[in-house]
């Protein structure tokens, strides 16, 4: 037991004396989560808009007021002619132009409907579509409030969508759990993957093998320090998600932490498994990057919905640990679910941790070569 504790202490020395390890461990996650959380978003905020108002009437003023107070749009240019608008688009100043034709206010008052022209920069088609949708919604609402419907117009059927759990359609709800799953996996697995490989590379493994030290304490001794540090890491990422990126925390905090620990354990055993197979630190690092980054990014349901993937890819996605953790994270934080609903995913992760640990134990050789 004492030799095991000394082994763990030695691992802590390795970590705290290597600035690069510390940077990967704590710097990278914070940077990436913030980056993903703020930058990787398809929400519209303060998009630059040009207005070309030929009407100059009361309603045109009101509609503009609505648009610019929504928070989605910002007035950039007050154009006086179509060539002005075209020039603004060419220079990339604006993403959207709103054109009020002559007689807009009059038509709305007397006919009950009027037309507004929306011109969008579709070189970025996602943004263009979102802008047009947002603007249309705002203008429609205004129209409905201000037109007096003719009495005998008859009933109208209207579909009213209600968005459960994320009424604001905030992108952070998707990106943050995905990023958390990705970062925790990468950092934990990468760091442990180099540890045993380093002992092999420097020759210290040779000395450790010719000692009473067994395989299990070596592997557990490698995992334990990173387990503690990765958990702190997980706490930081969760705190960032909740307080900086405004993800709700509706479920049980204890369950959330327990599941995070389980997921970290899976990542660490994966790293140790890679480490027992790799001959050098470089191989270990590359293997863990290549075998974890892309599959997790693409096949975890983080960026692309799993349901629309071809069957073979869906099957492969079943072995991606992040897939289950993302479901668990969203379930607990956003939907407020408990273990009763999430036991399947939890069981899969627990099974993975156990299986990977056994594999790592089996592949850490007793001798050289």
């Amino acid at each position: 037991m004492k030799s095991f504790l000394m082994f763990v202490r030695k691992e802590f020395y390795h970590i705290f004396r290597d600035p690069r390890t510390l940077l990967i461990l704590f710097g990278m996650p914070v940077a990436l989560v913030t980056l993903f959380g703020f930058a990787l978003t398809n929400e519209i905020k303060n998009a630059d808009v040009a207005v070309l108002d030929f009407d100059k009437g009361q309603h045109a003023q009101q509609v503009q007021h609505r648009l610019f107070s929504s928070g989605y749009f910002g007035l950039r240019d007050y154009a006086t002619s179509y060539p002005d608008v075209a020039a603004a688009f060419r220079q990339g100043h604006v993403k959207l132009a709103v054109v009020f034709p002559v007689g807009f206010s009059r038509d709305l008052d007397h006919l009950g409907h009027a037309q507004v022209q929306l011109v969008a920069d579709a070189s970025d088609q996602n943004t263009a579509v979102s802008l047009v949708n947002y603007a249309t919604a705002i203008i429609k609402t205004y129209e409905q409030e201000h037109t007096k419907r003719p009495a005998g117009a008859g009933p109208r059927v209207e579909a009213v969508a209600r968005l459960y759990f994320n009424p604001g359609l905030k992108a952070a709800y998707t990106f943050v759990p995905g990023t958390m799953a990705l970062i925790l996996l990468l950092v934990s697995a990468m760091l442990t993957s180099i540890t045993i490989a380093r002992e092999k590379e420097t020759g210290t493994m040779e000395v450790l093998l010719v000692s009473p030290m067994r395989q299990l304490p070596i592997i557990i001794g490698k995992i334990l320090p990173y387990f503690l540090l990765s958990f702190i890491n997980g706490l930081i990422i969760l705190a960032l998600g909740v307080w900086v990126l405004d993800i709700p925390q509706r479920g049980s905090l204890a369950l959330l932490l327990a599941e995070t620990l389980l997921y970290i354990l899976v990542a660490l055993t994966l790293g140790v498994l890679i480490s027992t197979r790799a001959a050098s630190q470089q191989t270990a690092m590359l293997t863990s990057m290549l075998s974890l980054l892309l599959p997790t990014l693409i096949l975890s349901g983080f960026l692309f919905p799993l349901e629309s993937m071809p069957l073979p890819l869906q099957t492969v996605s079943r072995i991606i640990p992040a897939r289950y953790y993302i479901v668990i994270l969203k379930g607990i934080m956003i939907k407020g679910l408990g273990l009763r609903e999430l036991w399947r995913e939890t069981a899969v992760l627990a099974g993975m941790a156990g299986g990977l640990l056994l594999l790592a134990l089996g592949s850490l050789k007793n001798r050289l070569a």
Partner: protein
Amino acid sequence: MPAVELLNISKSYGTTPAVRDISLAVEAGELFGLIGPDGAGKTTLFRILTTLLLADAGTATVAGHDVVRDFRAIRNVVGYMPGKFSLYPDLTVQENLEFFAAVFRTTVAENYELVKDIYEQLAPFKNRRSGALSGGMKQKLALCCALIHKPQVLLLDEPTTGVDAVSRQEFWHMLGTLKARGITIVVSTPYMDEAALCERVALLQEGQVLRIDTPAALRAAYPWPLYAVRAARMHPLLQDLRAYPAAHSCYAFGEAAHLSLRQPAPDAAARLTAYLTGHGHTGVVVEPVEATIEDTFMDLLAQRQPSPNSAHDQPAQ
């Protein structure tokens, strides 16, 4: 019972044989040397003895335990120093020693008396990271770490390679002290001059044992009359000596050339001086010398290889 015994051990890496049918026995308490150039199979032998590699054929025991069946037992009772520096460079001197003591389920205090002489030299640097130590200091620390659990058998793979002359001497002095405490030591070295410091040595070449004997017996077994020859210019001297009709072999040996003759002759030195002066050499000195282990080793090599006079200029140690 021998402390270390190898019986018909063979080991190949792929199709390259590393060790071929080696048998040898080291008595308990002996200081035994494995002497041979790089590629002679020394490291492979150590790895078989330390249970790190499995031999293709043959059996071996260390401290009475079979290297295959009882490998766990061997790992408890041997101290091993690999050829490459194998401590943690980011741990301090003291932390390394404490770590290895704990790994072997003991404490530094418990066996301090064994490493005291060596560790006292390291004590001024005990808070320095081991990666920042000089070559000689690193080897002393590695020896301390290999000794801290009071091993029955100490296996040292080229402990003095890459270490300065003074540190090498100190290191061998320490081995003598350890031997006096009854620890069996098997040490390998490519330096022939260090062979003389062992009680018995095995001369190895290309995975085979050339001869096992005491250094004195190896020197005495040298069959030819041997002369050390000096002259002002070394390179032409070697060429002319090799062309000398009575020459058996000739090697550069430090500042002199060692020349062995086919036949003993009372006036050999005078005749040789005349021959060299005739070839325009100046400052010629010819002295009869005792054979060193290197001379014996070269001679044994020559017996195995048909053309010994090719280009065996061994760098002097």
